[in-house]
């Protein structure tokens, strides 16, 4: 096993030293920092395989730093280690893509085991068992959330496990399903789509399983269904939440045994298909109300990918817009268009309830409206998006005013200056963890002047 590089971000010196020692015994290298800022800087400047991250740090909440840690080109695995574990925090952490969430009160073995697994995972991940360059046809974006989803795509592509892809409407679930198929060993075989939203109840069974001649009125010939056609390839059930309960039971059996019968048939047939499914519905809630079979749900999500809504990865909007405007212009046979900064501002300030699909349709409309204009301006966007931008810009201004002047009125300059000075000193003492020498160096104040100000504002230097 190669030596892994571990970073511990925790303000508990004893714990840091103990972890470093244990990690050293495992044959790996570890360093530690006591603050979040320092830790994130380390992650962004050095290659780490795993980061142990505390939640309550002197300069902030560790969970809030996860997106910045994800920006590291080495994308280390993160293990949350906290003194005050709570179920909501654990859920949030796991949903944010952390490797594990453990309490400091756990035994050293319980802390080291997830580390060992994470190191093993990274060794396998970088040993060449996954495709070197993931084919990501049409999947645009480098945001930490999209990158995390692509990591799961790579993992899914190298296995045969069923994958459940969830996400709001328009987030690109089918594109991710195709990416899993295109990067898998089944890439040159069939990718059969079952669109559960457009199949009438009466058609589901024969479309999925196929039917024998005479199985029902109008079945004048035997037909192969999509399960049979997907043999050796991938079966993609889009919007599986719409699958009728009666079909769910029959499909579960097929999924378990990879054997099925044509409707009206007696002989069992085999199909070696790999299942991918997608939904914008909450299948857990549906299974609680018996609208979706829990046993099927468990089978479906051996692996799961939760696609983020576009409003949660706004940093991808510009790249998405540039890619799709170039594509639209290419399709229409016109020169690709430039963008005014206000056009991007407007796209960034809107919430995109219809996600990427809504963005594409909006861009299509803007290009169409622009006609021969070489540049897209915000005036080419629909009114509701421009209104949103106008409101956001006014709101931002007001927010700044509100934080500066909480009472809403302009205070006296002396009071205003003192409130800022008090806040500055509080931050300084917190950041330096009451280290007066360090506080003097950062603030440029003499020791006596600093003490004088701390006394004036009754800020304690000792607990």
């Amino acid at each position: 096993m190669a030596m892994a590089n571990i970073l511990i971000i925790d303000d508990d010196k004893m714990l840091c030293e103990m972890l470093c020692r244990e990690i050293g015994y495992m044959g790996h290298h570890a360093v530690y920092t006591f603050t979040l800022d320092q830790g994130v800087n380390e992650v962004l400047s050095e290659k780490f395989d795993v980061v142990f991250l505390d939640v309550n740090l002197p300069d902030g909440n560790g969970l809030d730093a996860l997106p910045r840690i994800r920006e590291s080109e080495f994308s280390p695995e993160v293990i949350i280690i906290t003194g005050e574990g709570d179920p909501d925090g654990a859920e949030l952490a796991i949903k944010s893509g952390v490797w594990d969430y453990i309490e400091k009160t756990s035994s050293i073995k319980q802390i080291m085991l997830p580390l060992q697994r994470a190191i093993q995972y990274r060794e396998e991940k970088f040993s060449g068992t996954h495709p070197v360059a993931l084919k990501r046809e049409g999947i645009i974006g480098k945001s930490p959330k999209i990158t995390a989803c692509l990591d799961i795509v790579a993992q899914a592509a190298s296995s045969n496990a069923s994958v459940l892809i969830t996400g709001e409407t328009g987030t690109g679930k089918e594109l991710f399903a195709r990416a899993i198929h295109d990067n898998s060993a089944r890439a040159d075989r069939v990718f059969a789509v079952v669109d559960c939203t457009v199949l009438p109840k009466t058609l589901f069974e024969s479309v999925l399983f196929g039917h024998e001649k005479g199985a029902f009125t109008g079945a004048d010939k035997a037909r192969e269904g999509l399960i049979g056609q997907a043999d050796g390839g991938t079966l993609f059930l889009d919007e599986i939440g719409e699958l009728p309960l009666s079909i769910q039971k029959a499909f579960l059996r097929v999924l378990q045994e990879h054997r099925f019968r044509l409707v009206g048939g007696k002989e069992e047939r085999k199909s070696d298909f790999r299942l991918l499914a997608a939904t914008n519905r909450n299948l857990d809630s549906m299974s609680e109300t018996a609208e979706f079979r829990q046993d099927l749900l468990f089978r479906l999500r051996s692996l799961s990918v939760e696609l983020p809504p576009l409003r949660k990865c706004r940093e991808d909007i510009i790249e998405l817009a540039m890619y799709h405007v170039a594509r639209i212009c290419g399709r229409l046979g016109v020169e690709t268009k430039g963008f005014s900064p206000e056009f991007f501002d407007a796209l960034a300030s809107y919430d995109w309830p219809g996600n990427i699909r809504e963005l594409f349709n909006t861009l299509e409309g803007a290009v169409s409206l622009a006609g021969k204009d070489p540049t897209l301006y915000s005036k080419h966007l629909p009114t509701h998006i421009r209104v949103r931008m106008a409101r956001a810009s006014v709101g931002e201004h007001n927010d700044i005013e509100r934080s500066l002047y909480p009472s809403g009125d302009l205070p006296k300059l002396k009071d205003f200056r003192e409130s800022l000075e008090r806040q500055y000193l509080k931050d300084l003492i917190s950041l330096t963890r009451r280290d007066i020498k360090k506080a003097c160096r950062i603030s440029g104040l003499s020791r006596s002047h600093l003490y004088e100000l701390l006394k004036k504002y009754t800020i304690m230097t000792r607990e």
Partner: protein
Amino acid sequence: MTVLFFATRKNGDVKRLQREVAAVTCSEKLEAYTTFDSLVQRLRKPICHSVVAVLFITGEEELLKILSISDLLLTVRIILVLQDREKETITKGHRVYPRFLSHADSDFKDVAAVLEKMLETRHSY
């Protein structure tokens, strides 16, 4: 929503299919294309609403032509009708990523039912 109907032949199967499609899209915009080039020209025009394409494919060459313009069909929901049931034809047909796949020997009641549901469940964005 716009429904594009593509068929390069005008045989009995195509007429039956066109009748079924027209019956469920009477209040919608139905556009018929009888040559590959005219379909391409249409797809190169702005698409500001949801589009469904019903493509009646008469042979391998035509299927390959459709595959060659998959970039133009990215945002179009496709109902594909294939001439034969050969394994190779079906495999190639799935590369078009149809939302529904049918065959020329069908009574096309299935196509009509699926198209009707598509028109009901059009995307709001």
